[in-house]
């Protein structure tokens, strides 16, 4: 059970790291997968800087949670994912953005996995 949960946490963690690095190596297809076009100038700077840091941080925190067995790392990732989903919904409700249920559902599912991991895998 513990091993299965570790694998279940490791996979999104690895994906977050790969996606974070994709912002540095090949941002255009990465942005396209998020339904974004690559902007020019400072817009591009923010897209790559913020996007890369967001994904890479989540991936690193997930792996840190796995190797240190400290719940705060899993909780931090879970919190970031839940907030991302909430802001997605707010952007749709308040600012006329398109609703992205597929992305929000994935984020909520991963957030739940992280919260479960913080209870089952942590030893502090």
């Amino acid at each position: 059970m513990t091993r299965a949960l570790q694998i279940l946490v490791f996979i999104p963690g690895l994906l977050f790291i790969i996606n974070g690095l994709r912002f540095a190596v090949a941002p255009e297809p990465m942005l396209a997968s998020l339904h974004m076009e690559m902007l020019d100038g400072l817009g591009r700077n923010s897209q790559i800087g913020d996007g890369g840091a967001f994904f890479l941080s989540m991936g690193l925190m997930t792996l840190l949670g796995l190797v240190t067995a400290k719940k705060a790392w899993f909780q931090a990732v879970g919190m970031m994912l839940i907030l991302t989903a909430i802001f997605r919904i707010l952007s749709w409700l308040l600012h006329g953005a398109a609703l992205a249920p597929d992305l929000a559902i994935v984020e909520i599912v991963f957030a739940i996995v992280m919260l479960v991991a913080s209870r089952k895998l942590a030893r502090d």
Partner: protein
Amino acid sequence: MLRLILSASLTCLALTTSVIASDERPNIVLILADDLGYSDIASYGSEIETPHIDALADAGVRFTNYHTAASCAPTRSMLLTGVDSHRNGVPNIPEMLPQDQLAQDNYKGVLNRNVATVASILQSSGYHTYMTGKWHLGKEPDNLPYFRGFERTFAMGDSGADNWEKKPYIPIYKDAFWTADGKETDLPEDFYSSEFLIDTMIEFIDRNKGDDQPFFAYVPFQAVHIPVQAPQEFIDKYMGTYGRGWQVLREQRQQRIKELGIVAKDTEMVSMSTTGDWDSQDAETKKYQSKRMAVYAGMVDAMDHHIGRLIAYLKKTGQYDNTIFIFTSDNGSEPSGVDRVPSAINNAIMRRSQGYTAEYETLGLKGSMNSLGPSFASASASPLSFYKFYAGEGGMRVPLIISGKGISRDVDWQRSFSYVTDITPTILDLTGVSQPGQFFGGRHIEQMIGKSLVPLLNKATDNVYGASDTVGYELGGNKVLFQGNYKLVYNIGPVGDNQWYLYDIAKDPGETKDLAARETKRFQAMLNAYQRYAKDNNVRPIPEGYNQYRQIILNGLRTIAKDNILLFLLTIAVLVPFMLYARSHGRRRQ
């Protein structure tokens, strides 16, 4: 900022020269077909209907002995600069350059900054300069045509692209790279390349019509490059035309070319080793292959139709009488593809990987991948040997027509030797613009090697090249030296045999009689001259076992895999510390 300063200085210069120059200076329309074979237009012996190009040919000067490079980007680089491809940075297309050549400064496969384009020179002399079509001389921001002398552009940067939509034609490209005035852009829903390029060119010309400045319009068509595609109504005209096959077509065109007086009656031709035996093909293959050629003919016909629309526009707006047209091709016919019917599995793979099929019913239409194949390519080059990529006459000798203001047809055919680097000096001569000296735009530039063909147009001379003048050429290991009527030539595999041959291409354009053994002194002298050319122009050898098709695949894989390999290595670099930490932590716990 640099562009702003450059534009400002060019504008000042333009204003000055426009005062000096009269509005009598001719407009120039330079039309470049892509992969059009020597006998693919009616006035050069084709059965394909090309009335508008033929009308230009009838009224102008038709060259029978004009040579270009055997591949597109080297031709374009020499066409637009008058400088040898080994000095202008484009000795081969970048997609075919091996790594050790790519490491050399003169082998980047993009137009370097040591040359001035004819567009830059004309622009600085007060010409409007427009371009719509294929560029393929660099996709870097400062190498786009908009930044190489063209005032308005709608350009495609790759070696080719789909003719119906914005889509790459081979998987080495992620997307078709189209730009408008230097910025990446999309294509309209109802896009068909030849139609759109002419519509856009008309729009460019029309916007500045009547402002007293002449224009230079460069229209490098996508037609008839792969994917060979045409509107249904143009394909329908040729269904049933090619049922007798490629060998008969090659012979028919040879006969027609003789009748037209383009070559002597006793001109012989070879049969290429890559030409299949038509009679031994099964009925399904014959039906399929003849439709491939019908689509090709339809694409040539459609290009001609749209050239006709441009001519009609210029006539309607009173600009035709002050315009000189130059029509040519970037190299001979394209042999890529195989002479068989693609299997259902092939179609499924193509559909999945590229969104194409090559099914009979939709051949040439949107979503269809079509090519000519080596056998019909040889017919397109009739009566010449070889085709695109190779240094045989079929790869290098293409039609050249110069027609329009002040040019009359006093001789049936202009038979003197001419070369692609002659076009820029000719345009400058026709427009009364001097060739730049050693410097242009604040940079030291390479000197043009080409010669103006105007003395031929004026009948002031029979030849612009003297008997002792030599013109060297190298592309992907295929080598040539032209001198007088003679051609020393070396073709690599898989179709060539890595041997030097000597031909008299005035008497024997089909390259059927090797004179190397008979004229040993000339052979050796020309070989020495070629070695001098190679040394003077820093021609680099190709690697052992080089194969141009394999190189495209290797370079494509390298392009595609480059990002993924880097991503993989970075991911491993991130994971390793965690693995080491986890392992040491685990040991401590034990």
